[in-house]
């Protein structure tokens, strides 16, 4: 274990320093302020995959790596819809997932919002509408904000959250 502590001291904090990237700094500050103002400091997100390729999930996971560390801004991915303020939907709303996605949404206590992520939920990805796909998601649920990209990278997702926070 002593090896690890040595390494840790040497490595220091690698979370992207605001002075490195001016734009990131701005996003961070604004997200933090908005979350504080509108969600009393903590915005809880329940991510639901309705048939994506797993790239959007990987990017959301990347948000918690030491470079981005989203939680310090007050945004959390939670384990249950009942703990959530926002449902984040990725994927093409497959026929098999549609009832489950709707049920997850019903389980979220009001007030609640939906953010869609990636090109799939809006049918802008290369996938074509067929029998197994119920997208666009807007036909089934009321989407407040959409984060475009295939997949959107972590910074774009953060920007998306900020836009959402400004919208409501």
């Amino acid at each position, binding site marked *: 274990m002593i090896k690890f502590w040595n390494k840790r001291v040497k490595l220091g904090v690698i979370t992207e320093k605001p002075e490195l990237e001016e734009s990131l700094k701005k996003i961070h500050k604004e997200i933090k302020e908005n979350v504080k103002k509108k969600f009393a400091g903590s915005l809880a997100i329940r991510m639901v995959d309705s048939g994506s390729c797993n*790239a959007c999930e990987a990017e959301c996971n990347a948000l918690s790596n030491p470079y981005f560390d989203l939680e310090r801004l007050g945004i959390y991915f939670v384990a249950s819809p009942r703990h959530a303020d926002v449902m984040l939907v990725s994927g093409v709303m497959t026929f098999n*997932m549609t009832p*489950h996605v709707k049920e997850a949404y019903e389980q979220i206590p009001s007030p609640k919002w939906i953010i869609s992520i990636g090109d799939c939920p809006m049918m802008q990805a290369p*996938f074509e*509408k067929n029998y197994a796909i119920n997208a666009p998601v807007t036909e089934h649920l009321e989407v407040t904000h959409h984060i475009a990209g*295939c997949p959107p990278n972590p910074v774009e997702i953060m920007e998306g959250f900020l836009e959402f926070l400004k919208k409501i």
Partner: protein
Amino acid sequence: MRFIARFCKEKRECFEIITVYEESTKIEEISKESPRIKTLAKKEPSAIWFERKMQDDFGIIIEDAFDKRPLVHQERFPRDLHPLRKDFKEIQLQEAPYLQYKYEEISGDGVFQVAVGPIHAGIIEPGHFQFSQAGEEMLHLEVRHFYKNRGIEKMLEGKTLQEAKPIIERISGNESIAYQICYRDIYLQATKQELPLSLRKRHALLLELERTIHHLTDIGFIPNDAGFGAALSFASKLSEDARRKMNELTGHRFGFGAIDFENSFIDTASFHEWLNDLKQSVEFFEDWIIDIPSLWDRFDTTGILPLKKAVKYATVGVIARASGIAIDRRINPFYLEHGFSLASEVSGDVAARFKVRLAELQNSIVMMRNFLEEDDTKLEVTEIYDGEYQSFCESSIGELFMAIDIKDGLIERFFVRDPSFMNWQAVHIMMSSDIIADFPLINKSCDLSYAGNDL
């Protein structure tokens, strides 16, 4: 003779049932009026999903099957619809009345069922796990998937190979490069062309980079599921670095669209530098993690897949290698010349799968160094010939198999078997001696794809 895949093709006069083994392929023709086949699952247990899929997709009756439940079609899917038949043209289905799916369950005094999923507590893909429990002990697990079924096979029919590429890239985000390489091989077979060595090297480099990203993520998440979060912080930093390298090389963080026939410039100096850093970091990680006894207490003897079962279920990839099977699509002269060495363990538990990943990671770093070169070769692609083509690739999960039939320049039938499709069927065996709290750890140690499995 290792079983690889079993799938159906609709011809004008009949259905063809193709069974692919490692050394041979069997073709069986059955009539369209009464499409019936005998099950293979009594000899090859993992054939059962292929057969149940055929039953759903084509309406083929598996006469003596011990399991005739629907696989892809779920509770609300309209009955007696077979979407992969050529005469099926609907693009919007109405939900049918709910029909209960009968899970494999063990019953008895004090035995209870735990249903997990399809939506899980975390940022992961949907799938259902049904446990039969006696207290904490798992008596049985049924894995049920296909929630993410996007009808990819049908979607690609009637498209040209070029039109199909963006979709094939996006079947499974974690294995995008592997899918593209399978596609590339089929493309080259169809144009009767050879790939120049330098392009082959570039593609192999990207495949190893993808494997590196995936394994780095896993070596963080596996200890994290055993309650050791520091490993995740450490490894997710490395995997983010690797993902940024992927972005630098291909212009996309997941390498979508990266496999083409034109070599572009690579900044070899900075890449070498990054490889050196990564090598040191991985060595440090290994040295550090090996010294944490409480972690290995969770890893060792958890989720054992014995060699015999691993062979019986025709598992592939990391899982097979961790159980002592020497199987890897990279065992060929090209890879051996560039420093490939097979990672293998014998204990078949979580620890073995973790160690295989670590070893492969280190081997990938060696190989990436050998594949790296500055070059600007270009391959002019020529006309596509009709035919039936097959290809294989070793993705970060295991052996990927793809088959495409081309007729009049258009895709007549697209079939792909993700390594996860085989391995999911062996997951229930790993549960026999563990408690339910070990399940997330075991599941993560396999890290199988849901999207690639469901298609």
